């Protein structure tokens, strides 16, 4: 048996001497480690859910004509990209970018006025022209396996039924439920009173689930034949262009702002509305990547590509388009750091107390060991090893607690409505799906245990042998 193994066995037996005190300390380490891992898993879920939500709305990278991001939304015509197909081909066939790509698509963002003849209402709106099937692939991007909102039964009124858009339905559109409320699209036709529906949720005093459900397959009275008239100023000036769209669905959006203003429609219809008689124009080319980690590599390549091809284009990363993500992750990250420090300090004091008490009770033994020839550093190592074992046992139990917590969160199915959206999200902790949180919490426990054992071990090691032997 090696010296290391014998020292480990001795450390374990010493830990077992005062079982109650050691058990309390080990449990404190275990719950702190487990709690940190679970909280880390929650933070990880928050970050990834927000990342998925943001990328699901905007893609990883958006490419615009230079200047569009600052002043182009008010004048999309001046900043539109006319040669979309050519650029798309250039990106898709680039040897560096191609392997990282999930999808390249285009969109048109514009503003205008919307009126509903049926309800005699009008409002401003933000129009978004997309390729329906490609847009659907973006919204369904889910590399981390997080439970999506449309997979929750409680969200069925929002997401069930026909898709928002369809490639074959050029004139169809989806309307944000906030805008639908303004336009009173839920107002039943006079000849067909709406069937009462049971609403599962209410936000800001508005029964949004009910509102959305009016467009579902079970009750399509309100929107089945609802058409909206869209009015936009043509980019080249002149008279405003107008068109009609058919409301296919009232839908919640990733953000409240989008929900209150957005009408999503087929890109070819939007292009024809803004650029009548011209080939397809887009205001942004959207890149969806296989992995977010590749974002910097791809933008670096885009820089090279734009420069080489002399393209007057610029790009924005997903977190630049929605800075809320970084602000939110920084805030939650700080809260995590605060809790981490708080728990680590608590565990450190507990281990320090356990070790100090244990050493005080064993002064005679410490004197004996020193008399037999154990060096100061040898004794110090022995006592720190005991602290390390406390951390190790507690940390391993903490991992078990965290894994159990992960499983419990999976089966308990806690749902809530996150800030700024109107549908439910399932609360998850990404412990097993992000094992780094386990590594961090476990390593933190070990480091904390070792550091908090060092001081009492140092005191014991520096004690006079004769003084220690007096306590025999």
């Amino acid at each position, binding site marked *: *048996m*090696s*010296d290391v193994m*014998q020292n480990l066995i*001795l450390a374990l*037996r*010493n830990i*077992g*001497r005062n079982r109650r005190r050691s058990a309390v300390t080990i449990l404190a380490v275990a719950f702190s480690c487990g709690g940190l891992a679970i909280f880390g898993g929650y933070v990880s879920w928050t970050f990834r859910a927000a990342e998925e939500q943001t990328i699901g709305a905007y893609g990883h990278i958006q490419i615009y004509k230079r200047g569009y991001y600052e002043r182009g939304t008010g004048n999309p015509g001046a900043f539109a990209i006319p040669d979309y197909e050519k650029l798309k081909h250039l990106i898709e066939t680039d040897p560096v970018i191609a392997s990282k790509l999930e999808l390249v698509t285009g969109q048109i963002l514009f503003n205008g006025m919307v009126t509903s003849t049926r309800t005699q209402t009008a409002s401003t709106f933000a129009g978004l022209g997309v390729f329906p099937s490609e847009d659907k692939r973006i919204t369904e991007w889910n590399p981390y396996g997080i439970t999506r909102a449309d997979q929750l039964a409680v969200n069925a009124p929002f997401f069930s039924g026909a898709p928002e858009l369809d490639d074959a339905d050029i004139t169809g559109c989806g309307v944000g439920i906030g805008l639908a409320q303004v336009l009173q699209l839920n107002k039943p036709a006079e000849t067909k009173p709406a069937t009462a529906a049971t609403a599962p949720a209410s936000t800001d005093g508005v029964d949004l689930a009910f509102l959305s459900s009016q467009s579902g397959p079970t009750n399509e009275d309100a929107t089945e034949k609802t058409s909206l008239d869209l009015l936009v100023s043509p980019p080249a000036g002149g008279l405003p262009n107008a068109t009609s769209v058919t409301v296919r669905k009232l839908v919640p959006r990733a953000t409240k702002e989008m929900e209150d203003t957005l009408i999503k429609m087929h890109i070819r219809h939007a292009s024809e509305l803004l650029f009548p008689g011209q080939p397809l124009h887009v205001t942004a080319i959207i890149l969806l990547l296989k992995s977010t980690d590749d974002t910097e590599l791809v933008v670096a390549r885009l820089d090279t590509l734009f420069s080489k091809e002399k393209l007057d284009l610029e790009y924005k990363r997903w977190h630049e388009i929605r800075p809320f993500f970084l602000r939110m992750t920084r805030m939650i990250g700080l809260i995590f750091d605060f809790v981490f420090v708080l728990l680590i300090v608590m565990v450190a004091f507990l281990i320090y107390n356990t070790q100090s008490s244990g050493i005080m009770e064993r002064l*005679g*033994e410490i*004197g*004996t*060991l*020193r*008399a*037999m*020839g*154990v*060096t*100061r550093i*040898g004794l110090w190592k022995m006592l720190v090893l005991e602290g390390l074992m406390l951390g190790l046992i507690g940390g391993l139990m903490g991992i078990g607690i965290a894994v159990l917590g992960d499983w419990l969160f999976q089966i308990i199915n806690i749902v809530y409505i996150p800030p700024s959206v109107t549908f439910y999200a399932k609360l998850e902790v990404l412990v097993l799906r992000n094992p780094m949180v386990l590594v961090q919490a476990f390593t933190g426990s070990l480091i904390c245990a070792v550091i908090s054992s060092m001081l009492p071990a140092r005191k014991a090691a520096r004690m*006079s*042998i*004769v003084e220690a*032997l007096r306590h*025999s």
Partner: protein
Amino acid sequence: MPDAEILLETNELSKEYRLGKTIVNAVRGVSLGIRSGAFTVISGPSGSGKSTLLHLLGCLDKPTSGSIRITGQDVAAMSDRDLSAFRAKRLGFIFQTFNLIPVLTALENVEYPLRINRVPHAESRSRALEMLEAVGLGSHALHRPTELSGGQCQRVAIARALVNRPDLVLADEPTANLDSSNGGMIMNLMHELKRKLKTAFVISTHDPMVASQAEQKIIMQDGRLVDNT
């Protein structure tokens, strides 16, 4: 005494303690020599300085002045690390309260000094068992100290002190916590092992029975050596 026989030698050895503002002279100018393989007893009344002298001879404490030479080496000048190594190789200790490590078995307790000296595991195990058998506790090798009587514990402590074959064993009141029958048995055992292993013993004691068995008797009073015969 010829130099070749001298195992331990002190010269004007003194130890002062400070108790608040008072300086206590626990040992004052003690010069003595101890022969290899001798059975030496330090006796004297309580507070006479015999335990302090034993601690100094055992390199557990540093003298305020004077020198100690053991096997020709000036131990008073050694660093703490060197002293630890010296104690581990050359000295053995027996305590009044046995001072066995409670979480270790009798065998592991005896083996411990060998581990400190990095003796390979198989060898240390067999030597420890051999030593336990020598003190008559081979059958109790796997017992913890709490499962042994006082006499048995002290026998384990003797085995532990001797397992390294030290030049000198220092025993502080080894029979004080034992009844007379066990005390006598322990003394006989120490004599037997001394003869067998040719190890010197220095024992501090109040016990006249122990003192009567001394080959060399050192009597202390008020920190001074008053008799060395």
